[in-house]
């Protein structure tokens, strides 16, 4: 175990964290605005990967599959929010339970449409290479993952901090009732955020398809990791999701490398500890 080992594991952890950030950021924002946890979020991730596969099979273009899959799943999320979650009014428990039902429906739908085989999404040749820095190989694809998460994270952060609609979202997260009182259309905000969350999750699914693969059951495998991200970071906080994603990515990688027998335990136990000390997560607000 030399410096190289630590460097590679840290790099792998951070790149995995970048993927988890895409997944967790949406989950966290949705919670912030609507006070619900979307248990169908793992299904968005999976559907993103599957739809991208279909696009690639039809057009042969990986670059095209990224936006198309993300947009398609965003529309799915939008419809789910408009047609089923919204009519329940403000009733978080029932809404959460409803998302469970959708998680099942999406799971079955994916199985029917794409079958039970395991797929890989092959990235374009450009990203298949590695760069060598100081004798250590860094796969370009993982560099791309980190870069994508960075760009998207900064874009969302700027939108939240600098634009009018971003201010409206922040106001809704802080106090939805007050936000409504000063004339913010929280209804539209939650629609927007839900679609954005689905968009990000699907994007994560496409990118994750390059090294996790796309297969039945992935949705319920990835969901707890997304939960870990938002629990550690704190619900409704973008910065929290970023920190949480890095911590989970690193804990997962080092756990698997150092304590294989306890690897998942090393992932979830720190989360429980953080909760014991700070029930709202590191950056969450009550």
């Amino acid at each position, binding site marked *: 175990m030399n410096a190289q080992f630590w460097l590679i594991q840290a790099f792998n952890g951070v790149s995995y964290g970048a993927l988890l950030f895409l997944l967790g950021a949406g989950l966290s924002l949705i919670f912030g605005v609507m006070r619900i946890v979307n*248990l169908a979020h793992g299904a968005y991730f999976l559907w993103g990967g599957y739809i991208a596969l279909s696009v690639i099979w039809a057009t042969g273009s990986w670059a095209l599959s990224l936006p198309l899959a993300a947009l398609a799943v965003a529309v799915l999320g939008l419809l789910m929010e408009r047609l089923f979650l919204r*009519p*329940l009014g403000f009733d978080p428990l*029932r809404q959460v339970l409803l998302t469970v039902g959708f998680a099942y429906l999406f*799971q079955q739908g994916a199985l029917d449409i794409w079958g039970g085989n395991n797929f890989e999404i092959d990235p374009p040749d450009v990203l298949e290479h590695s760069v060598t820095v100081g004798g250590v190989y860094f796969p370009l694809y993982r560099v791309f993952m980190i870069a994508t998460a960075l760009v998207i994270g900064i874009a969302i952060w700027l939108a939240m901090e600098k634009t009018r609609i971003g201010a409206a979202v922040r106001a809704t997260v802080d106090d939805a009732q007050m936000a409504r009182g000063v004339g913010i259309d929280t209804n539209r905000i939650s629609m927007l955020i839900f679609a954005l969350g689905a968009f990000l999750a699907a994007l994560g699914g496409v990118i994750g398809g390059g090294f996790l693969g796309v297969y039945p059951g992935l949705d319920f495998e990835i969901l707890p990791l997304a939960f870990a991200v938002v629990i550690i970071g704190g619900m409704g906080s973008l910065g929290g999701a970023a920190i949480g994603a890095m911590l989970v990515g690193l804990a997962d990688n080092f756990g698997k490398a150092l304590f294989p027998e306890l690897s998942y335990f090393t992932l979830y136990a720190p989360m429980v500890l953080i909760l014991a000390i700070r029930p709202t997560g590191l950056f969450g607000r009550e």
Partner: protein
Amino acid sequence: MSQRAKVITVVAVLLALAYIIPHSGPYVMLLATRALVFAILAMSVDLLLGFAGMASLGQAAYFSVGAYLTAILATKYQFGLGWDFWLVVVLAMLLGAATAAFFGLFAVRASGVYFLMITLALGQCVWGLAYRWNSLTNGDNGINVSTRPNFGFDLSNEQTFFFLVFAFFSVTLAALYVLVRSPFGRSLEGIRERELRMKILGYNTWLHKYIAFIIAGAIGGLSGVLWAFTNGLVSPDTVVLTTSVDALLMVVLGGAGTLVGGAIGSAIVFGLREYLSTLVPWWQYVLGGVYVLTILYLPMGLMGIPARLRQWRAPASGSSELAPAES
């Protein structure tokens, strides 16, 4: 229906089932046995969700603690295959309770969606251990429990085993019924409706919820023992998130806060999953569809249908009957 009439109805239905199911062939009996085991787990979820207003997504943890204990004792130590089966039942309930007592320290002080997420995380801790702690749990392959206990009654006989599970179910149902009708259960309902008011009235609401959480853990452990012998295989699939989700789904489907609702939900889920799946390939859509429609239109679950019908007949009154459980 008065409380007395309800109890008589449930007892009558149980007696009828105890007669009908063994006469319906081995397949139905197998299905019923599985459904009853999950009904016990579902009732433990209902104690939390329906009476204390705590939506647990980690009940598979206690279920699997019981199942793994049973499997490890049976395969490594040949323990629990005779009269000591009853000792295993007690041990599993104690271990389930102890696990819940530990987890509860983290989970119980959270409420609503936070509680749901923390219980999920704790459930995943157990899953991670089951999946990776190869020397104890045999990892992904799981543990085969090939022999069932024989203590005068030979449980490898499916009918005998069905009656045993049936008896455990009935006793659990009765015990939980007594519990939720007791002052303790009433306080839990009070906490579900208005925790702050209960606090002001001087109740230690945390302790009430904590005790309920531990009891639910013990019952989860019990259902795990039965599952180990029903299924014959204990693997990480037992602990997986979908088991917790299933248990919660059953309760919501049947009706939270009714106890028997969980059993009805379990029967429907197993019925649809095992029976319908042999007839049509799109059975899971039916399950998902039924579930979504139930949440949208029947906040009280299928057990709420009579109240719903009464409400239709007398639209002006009776709306208070339908007050859904607050989160």
